[in-house]
């Protein structure tokens, strides 16, 4: 079965049983705390890190956090916590 079809089926399944899509679809969950902290749970790896931009891979695509004085406060296989002056969070 093609991955796109599999994702579509999983989404239908989650909607039917009223389950959180992030769990069923293995998607990343993004928490934004004001303009100073972003927490991404269930990421698939760090792609690029600089003080102005942090890019992480996720099932739904690339998550890009832009800002200034960015620092990775915590980094593990499941979670990444970014601190600094957050200006934008984009899904690409």
């Amino acid at each position: 079965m093609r991955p796109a079809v599999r994702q579509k089926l999983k989404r239908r399944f989650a909607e039917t049983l009223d389950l959180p899509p992030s769990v069923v679809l293995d998607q990343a969950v993004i928490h934004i705390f004001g303009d100073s902290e972003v927490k991404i749970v269930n990421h698939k790896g760090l792609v690029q890190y600089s003080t102005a931009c942090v890019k992480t891979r996720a099932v739904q695509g690339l998550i890009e956090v832009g800002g200034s004085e960015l620092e990775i406060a915590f980094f593990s296989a499941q979670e990444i916590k970014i601190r600094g002056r957050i200006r934008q969070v984009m899904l690409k």
Partner: protein
Amino acid sequence: MTQLLWLWWQGYLTVRLRGAGIERLLNRASQVGVALFRVERLTSDVVLVRMAARDFRLLRPLLREAVNGPRISVSVLDRHGLPFVLRRFRRRSFLGVGLGLAVLAVFYLANFVWFVQVFGNQALAVEAIKTAVEDAGLRMGIPRSSLDPARIERKLLESLPDLVWVQVKNRGVRVEVHVVERDEAESGEQRAGHIYAKQDGLVTELLVLQGTAQIREGDTVRKDDLLISGMYYDHQGRRQYGAARGIVKARVWYEAVGEASLVRWEPLRTGRRRSRYLLTVGPLTVPIGRSLPRENHLVTSRTWQLYLGTAMAPVSWTRLDYEEVEWETVPVPAAEAEQNAYELAWESLLAQGVDRERVLVEKRAVENLADGNGIRVTVRVEVLEDIGRFSGQ
């Protein structure tokens, strides 16, 4: 916070990674279970990371894995946390021993009485009570275990007859002595004596319970005039001397002056702040940091006291926060200044013993000060009060 405390407990390293493609190494590290904290990008090819000391050995094989890819160099810049502190102490054993001895000394010194404080005395001097307390066996430096509050209370009551009640409270290294003094009227009631005027006044009411009146209603009396004599004749006509008792009410006048400025100095914060610390061990205070003049700084302080269980140890830590200010003058409205001066005058009247509820007539005179910068309020009150003062012989 808890995570950082746990990391400090375990010991952690500040590691510098230099090279291209550091992100790939970080991903690989996270996959093998290494948690990274405070990852900082310093330059385009240098990143600082913090990691638990025990995870560092997991990083080495990953570097070898990347032998074909871009080369990344790793160096440990600093070591933090409890295991490294302990290791340092192992090397500097005397420092550790000294710290241990200091802690033991604090525990040992907390077993003694270091401060004796007296509360509740009015006529008796603190020094007199402290001398009696020392004679009763309570002095600075005695072991707390030898403290017998009941015995000290008994001895104090014996040695100071003016006390009617004593309580000795053990508060760690501090002992509080609470006293209540004998009421003068209570002690003088049975003695022979006369009643004298304690104020100038116009007598409006005279009631003699025992003794002989020396004045009549409507008389004007001066301070210390004899009002009721203790001499009286008993029912057999014999002259007796006893305690004069009675009530002499008179109109008494009081006057007080209050002055208030028409300008007020108010602090304007410049935003500059400095802190200073004080370490207090028993009577010794060690200042840490420079003292700043109080004329242009507002000072707030906070003190942390060391407690050993419920006992207070003679060690405290104080933080003084200095906030720089510039003083500027602000004009005060005349009505407000007059009210301030009036309240000051009343404070003075209350200090003279005037009972506000017994005031019959109150007069107020307001005038400006000669220099034009202030206001003066003179308050005159007429009060009805008992002017009798018993004096025993």
